[in-house]
């Protein structure tokens, strides 16, 4: 772990944290509408996994995907503008918080149907295998998706056809308001995935270095043809499922326990043990991030609305392409 890597991990995680906090403020003042699912508390997974992926690999995520998008390199400006419904947003203001897309970084979207992205990831990996391309499709989903039929169908196909897909399960112990023990007979999700003869690992989702390490090994295994890998990252979301949620389903004490071992806290302790904390100039990173986020808000505020006359554009491809 050198200073540059430490700076990268810390600033990416902090950017996500501050970005999501700004979203709360903007949502409260009605600047952002629709649904908003925040990644506060789970930053280490996105940052760790994205570190292991190459630009050539593909990413498929869920509706809680601001962190993945930022970690994948999509600009705070284009994501913020998207949530303002502006045409400068990464999907032209048509997707909103739950549907962030970016062709350049092969970010194939947030998906608002729980488990909806898994079959697509399988298909993308199938194409890569058929065309003998040396790249991985990383598929993020939560513990809620494990209960969907498509989880079983996708893991089975991926293993059956030995497809180059990296399944990353962000197990934050709650599917919206239903705790894990109320939705899964087998709560050890990596053990469940192993039953499909898939190499499955359980890792501390709060420790960015562990996540990055496991993800790197997984990608290497996949690219050496050992078939799909299943990474279960144990984590916790510090905020409600979405903005309008009284969190009746969990205790504050539990939330506070997890906050004490959150991704930023854990990483800071880790850097202090290695004498790196003082070297990364945390305050500079903080100020730079504040500026990035303020610029993003200004960019979004000044964004323009897509003309209504474009409403039907892209329902089908333009005539000439057909």
């Amino acid at each position, binding site marked *: 772990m050198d200073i540059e890597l430490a700076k990268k991990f810390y600033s990416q995680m902090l950017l996500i944290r501050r970005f999501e*906090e700004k979203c*709360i*403020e*903007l*949502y*409260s*003042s*009605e*600047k952002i*509408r*629709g649904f908003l699912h925040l990644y506060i508390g789970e930053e280490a997974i996105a940052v760790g996994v994205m570190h292991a992926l190459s630009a050539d690999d593909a990413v498929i995520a869920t509706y809680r995907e601001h962190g993945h998008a930022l970690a994948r390199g999509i600009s705070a400006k284009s994501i913020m503008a998207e949530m*303002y*419904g502006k045409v400068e947003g990464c999907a032209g203001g048509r997707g909103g918080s739950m549907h962030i897309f970016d062709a350049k970084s092969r970010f194939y979207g947030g998906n608002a149907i729980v488990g909806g992205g898994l079959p697509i990831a399988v298909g993308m990996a199938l194409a890569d295998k058929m065309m003998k391309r040396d790249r991985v499709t990383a598929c993020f989903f939560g513990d809620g998706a494990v209960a969907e039929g498509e989880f079983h169908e996708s893991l089975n196909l991926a293993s059956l056809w030995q497809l180059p897909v990296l399944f990353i399960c962000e197990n934050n112990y709650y599917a919206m308001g239903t705790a894990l023990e109320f939705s899964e007979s087998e709560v050890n999700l990596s053990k469940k995935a192993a039953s499909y003869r898939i190499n499955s690992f359980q890792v501390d989702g709060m420790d960015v270095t562990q996540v990055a390490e496991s993800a790197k090994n997984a990608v290497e295994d996949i690219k050496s043809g050992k078939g799909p890998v299943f990474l279960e990252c144990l984590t916790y979301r510090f905020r*409600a499922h*979405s*903005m*309008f*949620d*009284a969190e*009746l389903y969990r205790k504050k004490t539990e939330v506070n326990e997890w906050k004490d071992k959150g991704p930023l806290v854990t990483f800071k302790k880790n850097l202090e043990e290695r004498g790196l904390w003082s070297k990364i100039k945390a305050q500079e990173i903080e100020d730079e991030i504040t500026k990035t986020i303020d610029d993003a*808000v200004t960019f979004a505020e000044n964004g323009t*609305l897509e*003309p*209504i*006359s474009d*409403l039907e554009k892209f329902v089908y491809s333009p005539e000439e392409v057909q």
Partner: protein
Amino acid sequence: MSEFLMPSLGADMKSAILMQWKVKVGDRVTKGQVIAEIETSKGVIEIEVFQDGIIEKILVEPETECNVGTPLALIRSDSDEENITVSSVTAEQAQTEAIPLAPLEKATPDRYQDTTPPQRIKASPAARKKARELGLDLADLAKTSEGEIHLSQIESVAKTELKTPSADKMRQAIASAMSLSNAEIPHYYLSASVNMSPALSWLEEINKNLTIKARILPAAMIIRAVVLALEAVPELNGYWQEGYHQVCKEIHPGIAIALRKKGVITPALLGAKDMNLSQTMQALDDLIMRTRAGKLRGAELTQQSITITNLGDLGVENVYGVIYPPQVALIGLGKIIDTPWVQENKVIVQKVMKATLAGDHRATDGRTGALFLDKFNRILQNPKELL
């Protein structure tokens, strides 16, 4: 200085109850710190402040319901001047600008491009159906109207060129007229016996040197007599409308014509004043034929200025008719029958017809009626006047 507002937690949240403050005036607060609890439809939710500062003033007491965007407290930030915090944006500004509605009309696709070929008559199905029912020809109607032909146009045309309405509709029309008439018109009745023998034998002489096609029926002669009498006594020929009596310059007598098995209709013999006897006969012949063929013109159904019912054919002697509003008189002509008649104090047999007059007392009185019957009778006693 900035306001701490009641936050919006979702599109379907319009207001919430401030339950409890976690801080008091003078307390220092830091960005993200929970400073109050609110009660929403989903339960109690903690709300946080979005920048560092000191609680300057509490604006809302606990247990108060406030709309989203209501200022709850004032927060003085450390260095008040430099950092302008977003939260100071009031609720109104906070509203993302309303989506421009103007283009919404443009966004609604126009219903359809009218591509009906010119030669196709654009008539609505309702209009076509009505036209078919009334035997109206759409083609000539289309010539006079541009654009689409709707039911309303068919119905207005029907008023002027009505085909004989079907029997039951006609019954209904007569029924409503009769009930109105009975209810509103104060009728008075007069009758007189008219010796028809002289006129009939005069007519027979005339018919002798006419071919059968030009033969004149007694009815035509009688109608001619009525018209001449009305010229002398014009008050009976007109309308009672909106409370006043209006005498009609033209004389359009409604003639009762029987339709086989379908009741009686009284189309007007338009412009009877300007017809001599044979012209009256031809006009009557034409009117009866068109009535039975159902090809009457609208005016013939609406312009009657008086009505003549000669139900004599059916053996009824006295005809006490009911006036058709808004007309003011009706003349009933009975059956011509052989009757003992006193002449130069000898009793001889003559062909006698009972003529009755129903009058609207609002418009005319018995004296006018009597004058008319007298004139009518004298004309028939001197038939040459009829030519």
